[in-house]
């Protein structure tokens, strides 16, 4: 038995009430919903469950342990900050889908079986796409369609994998899996799509920059972190994840350096951060899992903060490209300083949150002796400071003056950003609270002299490299351009298939229509119209001849028969028709 509601229900209820209200009441409900959800969560007891038998399947809607609780708290916190940020939004679609989306993410992390997981997994996709479409531009619409395509595929893979697992093991329980058959591989791939594995990552950098300022803040908090949770639950210690995570940490930083859309830069740096988490899950030791989960927690807050600051810039100036911005510290000094806090946190400066969580993964990699992985991750740590730590604040708020003068971000947005900035510094300075929530006991000490000196050295020399390259004029200028990514294959390749099939099928169609159709149909028409009468006349003529009709009578008879068969007015036809009618009447009454 449980003392609480299903943790998603409070958020769903809030989403349902929201559209009925207006003005202050709606704002109140928007803020209160995550708070009430959080209170409900506090009363959940570890070990509690919500068993349910559905169509003969034993399901467990709620599984409460340290791992699911941590993500539950995190998602409520993210929803709370997001709702404050969104309080001045008038568009009900955005608000409703944001709360439904948060509720689905909470459902994912508490799902104890694969079927429940699948349902919330699909809801995650369906509710979030409206945050992209809410921008109401043509490009956001198509981007949303591509987003949905990949996420629904992820859901289908999960369902197929779940069915396979049930067939093999006779259980739908969502527990530790090993990659030893098609079923686990399908589930792994389903998680991989949402987690933005290399080549499956394109939806993220495609759609996050297309959503509304508020939409992207919510999007960045839930989907990928729910997938990180799913991997940590289902596939900890899977060797493949170490390689996948290292690639994820490495390749996006190159894209981020040359990308012009600043929210897309953040999208790439998000994949880079998830790479660290995936490596941690792949290593699978308690220290590594703790590091991965702690970093997921911190990442939601500091990446949310960075997306919020860029959202505020987009809201106030209507622009988000590096080429069009610059010098905004003059008009938006508070937003700029919050952005700097987010930048310091993602770069893992001492006293900021990234410092206490990313290093756990690095330490675990070292202990396990993966030298190359460690070197690549260190490269990526320097790289992330370079593009997310320096480039984002530099091109938006400093660099050359774009001449844009605007107002500081609205108060509600400043409050949300301030809260996130506070959490970044709090978690970085006093990591004990975060550590106490982690799934395994922590005996890791982040603040050693070695760690502080080496990490600061790494970052300062990265900054030195940036400064030197800018001063020497080597640093690439922002350019109005886009960069091809793996989605080229389905965006251009899809068009190729479309054009190819259009050419083949339409040519086939028109040639059939022009040549084959008129003649054949004419022939068939003549055949069906005249063949029966000719056959009848052929059959009856000998009879008439035997009856010794005169030639004129014979001709009249033939004409009459042709006429009647053509019109279907033969006495037998009429009789048959009447008989059917009669039978029909008898049957009906």
């Amino acid at each position, binding site marked *: 038995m449980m003392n609480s509601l299903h943790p998603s229900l409070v958020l769903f209820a809030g989403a349902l009430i929201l559209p009925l209200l207006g003005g202050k009441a709606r704002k109140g409900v928007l803020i209160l919903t995550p708070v009430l959800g959080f209170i409900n969560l506090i009363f959940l007891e570890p070990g509690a469950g919500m068993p349910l038998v559905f169509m003969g399947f034993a399901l467990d809607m709620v599984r409460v342990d340290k791992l699911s609780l941590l993500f539950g708290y995190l998602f409520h916190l993210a929803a709370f900050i997001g709702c404050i940020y969104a309080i001045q939004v008038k568009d009900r679609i955005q608000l409703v889908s944001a709360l439904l989306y948060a509720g689905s993410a909470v459902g994912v992390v508490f799902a104890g079986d694969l079927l429940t997981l699948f349902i919330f997994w699909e809801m995650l996709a369906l509710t979030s796409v409206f945050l992209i479409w809410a921008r109401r531009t043509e490009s956001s619409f198509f981007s949303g369609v591509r987003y949905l395509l990949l996420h629904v595929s992820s859901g289908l893979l999960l369902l197929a994998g779940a069915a396979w697992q049930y067939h093999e093991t006779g259980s739908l329980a969502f527990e530790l899996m090993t990659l030893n058959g098609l079923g686990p591989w399908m589930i792994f791939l389903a998680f991989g799509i949402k987690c933005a594995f290399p080549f499956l990552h394109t939806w993220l950098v495609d759609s996050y920059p297309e959503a509304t300022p508020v939409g992207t803040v919510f999007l960045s908090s839930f989907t990928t972190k729910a997938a990180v949770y799913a991997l940590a639950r289902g596939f900890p210690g899977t060797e493949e994840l170490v390689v996948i995570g290292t690639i994820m940490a490495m390749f996006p930083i190159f894209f981020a*350096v040359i990308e012009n859309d600043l929210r897309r830069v953040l999208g790439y740096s998000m994949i880079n951060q998830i790479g660290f988490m995936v490596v941690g899950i792949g290593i699978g030791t308690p220290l590594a899992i703790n590091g991965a989960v702690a970093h997921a927690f911190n990442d939601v807050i500091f990446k949310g903060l960075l997306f919020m600051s860029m959202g505020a810039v987009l809201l106030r100036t209507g622009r988000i490209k590096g080429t069009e911005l610059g010098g905004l510290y003059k008009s938006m000094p508070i937003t700029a300083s919050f952005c700097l806090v987010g930048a310091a946190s993602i770069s893992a400066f001492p006293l900021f949150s990234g410092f206490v969580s990313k290093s756990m993964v690095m330490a675990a990699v070292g202990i396990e002796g993966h030298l190359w992985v460690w070197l690549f991750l260190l490269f990526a740590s320097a790289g992330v400071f370079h593009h997310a730590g320096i480039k984002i604040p530099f091109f938006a708020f400093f660099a050359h003056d774009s001449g844009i003068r605007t107002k500081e971000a609205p108060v509600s947005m400043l409050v949300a950003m301030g809260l996130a900035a506070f959490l970044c510094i709090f978690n970085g300075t006093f990591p004990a609270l975060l550590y106490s929530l982690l799934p395994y006991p922590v005996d890791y000490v982040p603040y050693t002299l070695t760690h502080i000196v080496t990490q600061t050295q790494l970052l300062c020399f990265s900054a030195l*490299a940036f400064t030197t390259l800018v001063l020497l004029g080597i640093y690439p200028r922002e350019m109005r351009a886009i960069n091809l990514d793996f989605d080229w294959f389905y965006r251009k390749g899809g068009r190729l298939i479309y054009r190819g099939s259009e050419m083949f099928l339409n040519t086939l169609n028109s040639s059939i229509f022009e040549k084959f159709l008129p003649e054949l149909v004419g022939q068939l028409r003549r055949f069906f119209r005249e063949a029966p009468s000719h056959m009848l006349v052929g059959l009856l003529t000998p009879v008439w001849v035997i009856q010794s009709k005169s030639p004129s009578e014979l001709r009249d008879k033939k004409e009459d028969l042709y006429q009647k068969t053509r019109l279907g007015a033969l006495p037998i036809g009429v009789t048959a028709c009447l008989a059917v009618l009669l039978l029909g009447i008898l049957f009906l009454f």
Partner: protein
Amino acid sequence: MENEEPQEWQDYEDGLALLPDDGKKHFFDDKKNVRKVIRILFICCAILFLLDAVFLFEHKHLNFAEGEFPAEGWFGFFGFYGFVACVLLVLLAKHVMRTLLMRKEDYYDE
């Protein structure tokens, strides 16, 4: 290319705000301040590099087990690695990635 029109936000109570320049001078309008910040960064780097000397006397906690990757303990290893990594990153991104992957903004709309 001309800049696009900034996007208006109908769904927000308090959205787009484009104001005229009030002519006020700000901190970085003075080039002296920019130079000051850069100088501070240089000094920080120098201090941090020299701070590695502490570990001549103090034990350095390495990530790897003894003897597995001794370079980690070298004087200024992290600073050197960070600097080289960033330079490599920028040069590769600028010369290789841009050459191969950069397209016009309307590439997908054609």
